[in-house]
């Protein structure tokens, strides 16, 4: 159809809708992804310079190969794929829809004989007899027959799976939907982490990638965290009992484990990891001059006055294993009006280095608790992604299991009015060999019953060509 609107669109869209571009993009995306898996992602420029020569590090940085999947050029490739998909759809869908909706054009035996799969049988019987037999025979092998108005002859079409032509568009659109969903998620949603000790309540999420903190519109409290192990030592289950507190009221209580998150107002909490935190410690200070001992109980991060002085002491950090020396606490000594000083104290190894200012420090008791590591996410685009996934599965599945096939039949009376010429033609979008086999079987059956039976001598005309696909 050269004067078709779709064709002119095709010319205008040109290379953007071409299959060649599709292939190039597939290979380019595959190649880029491959580089991304071989080169460690997320390295900083400094780390790159430590690993590679300056020139290579510069090149990697220039092409953003260390953050490839989020680089501009990778996004442009994805965008081009979308443009290609849309252009193809705009280019081809109208034609397909017209093919599906259009009423059958009138045809005759001459037109049918031009098909790559066609056959012609001549029977010495009147039109009406042949017509009814052909009707029932075709119905039996190919399903319902739809008759088409034509003068003086019998024309009919049997078509199956005409909608299967649309499946490929379904798959293409599903890819677009998934990408749009991903885009919506990355712009309208967020992803971050929160560490909660048992009993702690918070609404602060540390956003992924950056140092920025996001405040949730409600509070989360961790009531309990449990971890269990198998006999083999492998972890069995991580479980956090969480409560959601909205406007001062406890609205939801649930426990989460890996694979079973909790969602409240579109925000989902995942069990990601766990660790140990310090609740507080009891320490004993010994004045190095006087030898006087002071007992102190320090809660985590809360400065406490050192009795008999105007100074304060606080635990500001905790390590479960500081440089393989075991547990350690970081003490910060605050003198009024002066620069405060900090010092790591090894809790498990009392030695002379455990000191701050003029005090020797001994940690007499350490009070630890577990914290649960939560992954927190809001993704409004996820429903689009799921919808795209469903459409993609259905589309590819139906492409595999369905096919479009069409059979044309035309019975024309011969000029002498004593014979009828049956012309059949067929076309199948998939599994052409099987369709052809069925087609040939039908022709053989018609020939057997209409031409060969004990009847006046008949003339046979064969016009059989193989399908192009089989050659």
């Amino acid at each position, binding site marked *: 159809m050269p004067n078709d609107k779709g064709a002119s669109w095709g010319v205008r869209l040109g290379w953007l809708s071409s299959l060649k571009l599709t292939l190039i993009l597939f290979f380019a*995306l595959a190649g880029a992804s*491959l580089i991304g*898996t071989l080169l460690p992602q997320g390295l900083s420029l400094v780390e790159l310079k430590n690993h590679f020569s300056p020139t290579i590090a510069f090149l990697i940085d220039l092409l953003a190969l260390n953050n490839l999947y989020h680089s501009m050029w990778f996004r442009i490739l994805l965008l081009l794929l979308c443009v290609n998909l849309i252009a193809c759809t705009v280019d081809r869908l109208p034609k397909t829809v017209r093919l599906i909706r259009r009423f059958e054009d009138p045809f005759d035996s001459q037109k049918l004989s031009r098909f790559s799969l066609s056959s012609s049988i001549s029977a010495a019987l009147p039109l009406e007899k042949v017509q009814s037999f052909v009707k029932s025979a075709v119905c039996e092998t190919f399903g319902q027959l739809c008759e088409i108005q034509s003068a003086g002859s019998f024309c009919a079409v049997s078509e199956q799976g005409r909608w299967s032509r649309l499946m490929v568009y379904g798959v293409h659109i599903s890819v677009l939907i998934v990408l749009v969903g991903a885009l919506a998620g990355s712009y309208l949603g967020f992803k971050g982490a929160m560490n909660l000790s048992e009993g702690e309540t918070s609404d602060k999420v540390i956003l992924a990638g950056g140092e920025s903190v996001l405040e949730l519109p409600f509070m989360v409290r961790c009531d309990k965290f449990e971890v269990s192990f198998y006999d083999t030592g492998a972890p069995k*289950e991580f479980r956090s009992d969480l409560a959601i507190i909205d406007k001062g009221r406890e609205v939801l209580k649930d426990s989460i484990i890996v694979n079973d998150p909790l969602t409240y107002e579109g925000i989902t909490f995942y069990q990601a990891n766990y660790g140990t935190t310090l609740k507080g410690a009891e320490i004993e200070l010994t004045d190095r001059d006087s030898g006087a001992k002071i007992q102190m109980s320090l809660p985590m991060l809360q400065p406490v006055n050192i009795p008999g002085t105007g100074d304060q002491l606080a635990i500001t950090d905790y390590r479960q294993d500081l440089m393989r020396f075991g547990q350690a606490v970081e003490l910060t000594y605050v003198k009024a009006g002066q620069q405060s000083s900090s010092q790591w104290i090894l809790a498990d190894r009392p030695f002379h280095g455990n000191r701050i200012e003029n005090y020797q420090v001994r940690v007499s008791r350490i009070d630890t608790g577990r914290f649960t590591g939560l992954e927190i996410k809001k993704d409004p685009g996820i429903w689009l992604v799921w919808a795209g996934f469903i459409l993609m599965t259905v589309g590819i599945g139906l492409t595999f299991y369905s096919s479009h096939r069409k059979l044309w039949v035309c019975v024309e009376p011969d000029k002498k009015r004593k014979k009828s010429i049956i012309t059949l033609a067929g076309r199948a979008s998939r599994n052409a060999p099987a369709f052809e086999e069925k087609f040939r079987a039908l022709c053989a059956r018609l020939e057997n019953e209409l031409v060969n039976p004990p009847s006046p001598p008949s003339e046979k005309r064969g016009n059989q060509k193989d399908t192009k696909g089989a050659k």
Partner: protein
Amino acid sequence: MTSSLLLSLTTFAYLLCTVLYLSGTVFSYRPLLGAGAVSGAAALLMQTGGIGLRWIESYRMGYGHAPLSNMYESLVFASWAIMVIYLVFEWRTKQRALGVFPALFSFLAMAYASFSKDVDSKIQPLVPALKSNWLIAHVMTCFLGYAAFAVSFGLSIVYLVKKRSIYVGKPQNPNPHGALQVSLPSVSQLEWFNYQLVLFGFLWLSIGIITGSIWANSAWGTYWSWDPKETWSLITWLIYAALLHARNMQGWKGERVAWLSIIGFGCVLFTYFGVNFLLSGLHSYARQ
């Protein structure tokens, strides 16, 4: 009767099956191919029993999970899936002479699972991340896809060899056994079968990636994180998508499509083994 005994026997049954198919093809003798199919079906039955027993044994040990959780179990399932897909293919198409490669792959997968020092065949408990109903759906769909691609890889090689021999004009073998002689399908038939298998594999690979991302979303809170395993499955998907599109392009149908299928299977192998052993990522449990 234990699962490990059944699965060891399966390994040798697949070896026998491979030898039968190979000799049937080389000596061009049809009954040998029939014996190949029978031994393949018998091995498959035995393997099904072995997998089922292993499942039951895991419940007896108190772990209770489908045998799809580590390298050993996935190799056994891969071998099973290849044979299932091949036998259904043979039954549907009535083509008996294409069994060498699928039988060989099934045997190699079992042999590697049984004899390699890197692969631990012990039944292990599931770590928290694997405790999900998606485990069965994700692993089964992925491996059905991989298996279809493995069979397609075999077909592509047969296709290329056959096409080359036509170009060279190699005379057909003299016919020593008359009706018993083996006949390979024609080049165009091979091309069609190959396309069907790739489309089938593509369907399952897509579902495999989709179930994987739904699972990742419920376990880690992200459906796509560019983890090496994910990325390589995407690379595989892109290559086979390219194949399906290339078939409609002038000059690509035929040999180039066959080569793409071979490259695609290379990607499958890298997704499966290469990523586990060479690259680190979230999928590390598949390494043991």
